């Protein structure tokens, strides 16, 4: 009887476990294992080198550049896309005409494939006759700017694309959360004499806490994961100005074919993401009220 129950339990757990082990846990362990060996080349098989790959990484200025870029990229896009998502959600949650059309419009960038978005923005950023330059010329009287070709503007241009792509998606979560707040709470706040700002700060925002945490974790992970547009638009250039950890891993692993070095890089990225998620859940989770 007991054996049967155990068998059932394994059968239930089986499918999910097979997928997780095959595609998540095994690759992590394998990557870590590979990062401790040298890259096999031709007749030279891989040999154990300990932490040498990590030493090389620490001495690699492009790695440090990519890491710095990535931190700027994440710290810029995450708060911006969350704030924008919240503003859009509050806006289309209100009583305004044509809000269904507006919701669709805000959500459209999410539906588009990132590759398509990147190509779209390539046109926007084209010097002189692209949309962005046309606008800056019309409104500010600026001349032609090579947005993607200058070190100063390239990373910022990438961040704008990411925010544009992400905010609509996060808006949907905020919209769902806003509609789950019982209207009677707003009525109670109105009877108690709270101003609109107070209602937002003391009722709406705290009740959106769990959603904000969820979005923040996702946004931050996307900050390290979502690089399709960079591959399409700049390939990390110019002069590594838009190189992020993931584009650098791709470059090292699949263009230089230095797989061991790429494995070490991957482990660093993984560690970073784990630390971030852990920090968010402990710090924010403590202050978040779950209904």
């Amino acid at each position, binding site marked *: 009887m007991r054996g049967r129950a155990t068998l059932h339990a394994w059968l239930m757990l089986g499918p999910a476990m097979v997928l997780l082990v095959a595609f998540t846990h095994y690759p992590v362990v394998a990557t870590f294992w590979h990062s401790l060996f040298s890259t096999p080349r031709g007749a030279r098989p891989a040999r154990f080198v300990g932490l040498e790959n990590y030493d090389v990484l620490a001495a690699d200025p492009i790695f440090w550049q990519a890491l710095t870029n990535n931190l700027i990229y994440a710290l810029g896009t995450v708060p911006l896309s969350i704030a924008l998502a919240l503003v859009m959600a509050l806006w289309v949650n209100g009583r305004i005409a044509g809000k269904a059309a507006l919701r669709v419009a805000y959500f459209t960038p999410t539906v588009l494939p990132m590759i398509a978005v990147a190509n779209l923005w390539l046109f926007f950023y084209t010097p002189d006759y692209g949309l962005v330059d046309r606008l800056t010329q019309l409104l500010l009287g600026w001349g032609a700017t090579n947005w993607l070709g200058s070190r100063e503007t390239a990373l910022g241009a990438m961040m704008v694309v990411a925010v544009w792509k992400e905010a609509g998606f996060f808006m949907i979560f905020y919209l769902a959360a806003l509609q789950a707040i*019982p209207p009677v*709470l707003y*009525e*109670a706040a109105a*009877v*108690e004499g*709270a101003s609109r700002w107070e209602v937002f700060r003391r009722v709406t925002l705290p009740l959106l806490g769990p959603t904000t945490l969820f979005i923040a974790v996702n946004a931050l992970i996307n900050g390290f994961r979502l690089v399709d547009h960079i591959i399409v638009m700049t390939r990390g250039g110019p002069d590594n100005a838009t190189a992020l950890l993931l584009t650098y891993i791709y470059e090292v692993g699949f263009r230089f074919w230095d797989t061991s070095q790429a494995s070490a890089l991957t482990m660093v990225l993984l560690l970073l993401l784990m630390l971030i998620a852990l920090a968010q859940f402990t710090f924010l989770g403590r202050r978040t009220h779950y209904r």
Partner: protein
Amino acid sequence: MNPTDGRRAAIQLDAVRKRFGDTVALHDITLTAAPGSLVVLLGPSGCGKSTLLRVLAGLEEATGGAVRLGGRDVTGLPPAARGISMVFQSYALFPHLTVAENILFGLRARKVARAERDGRLRRTAAMMGLAPLLERRPAQLSGGQQQRVALARAIVAEAPVCLMDEPLSNLDAKLRAEMRHEIRSLQKRLGLTMVYVTHDQVEAMSMADQVVLMRDGRVEQDATPAELYARPATAFAAGFIGTPPMSLLRLEASPGGACIAGAPDHPVAPAEAAGVLLGLRPEDVVPTDGHGLPAVVNSAEFLGAETVLRCAVGSEVLQVRIPGHHMLATGSSIRLRLPPPAHLFDPATGRRLPLPASAPAFA
């Protein structure tokens, strides 16, 4: 009601109308409440009682008419400017705030000084027995405790008018009876003018100074509980108040006077009453061994202290409430002694009719 009286009234509604699209929720409601009184808005669901309360609170805008609170016209004012507090059916406690923060929400919004705030919190918490719970979140409280927090939040505002929207409907029967008592004594002690919405006539009868019985967006009767019970103004009021409520029986003409439809040999009212509805309180009808109106028992419901019989008389059904346990079999015959006719209603309009001049003892 002349306009000078309005200044003394805590609440005065003047032909208040509310329309949602094509549906009229309130038809020209006019009523007045004295300061310090507890007014119950009573009626079945969909009668407009909650809408009326929300119009009073300013959560819904009246389509027409005027709302005056304490002599001040508040018709166009937002809820916060009306000098009211409110307890919602679902309590509407802020789930992310502690009990203390919930109670103080309004005082903080109104920028009441900290010392004053703390003093009022302490007093209110002590009064409501919430002192040990102040640091808890609503989810950590029982339904009854949440109710108290909602009540405390309303009281701490010290608004002259307190509005309650079915505040006890989510509590179990025992707790409901306790809270009924508690709310009433609190209201008296603090001298609040309270408007209390309920569909429960027990709450209405036991708590109210004034009951406003509503139906289909109109006031059916506005009276004290005693008056409502003793002299229902309409057949609807008669059929709503009382457990079980008044039985309404059609009267027909017969040689000896008006009698219950289908029971021609036993006149129960003077001949002029033929064709109208006769209202009989179940507690006024008594079974008798001797001479009386023959009836057939349809069912008997035992309620502990009493038994309620449903009896067929002619083509009508009559309820009888008798003390003690009487399990009469379905179909058994009994005889009933009726009280002298006291309640007659027009079958078309439902209005109460004056009693015929000569009303000797019948049946």
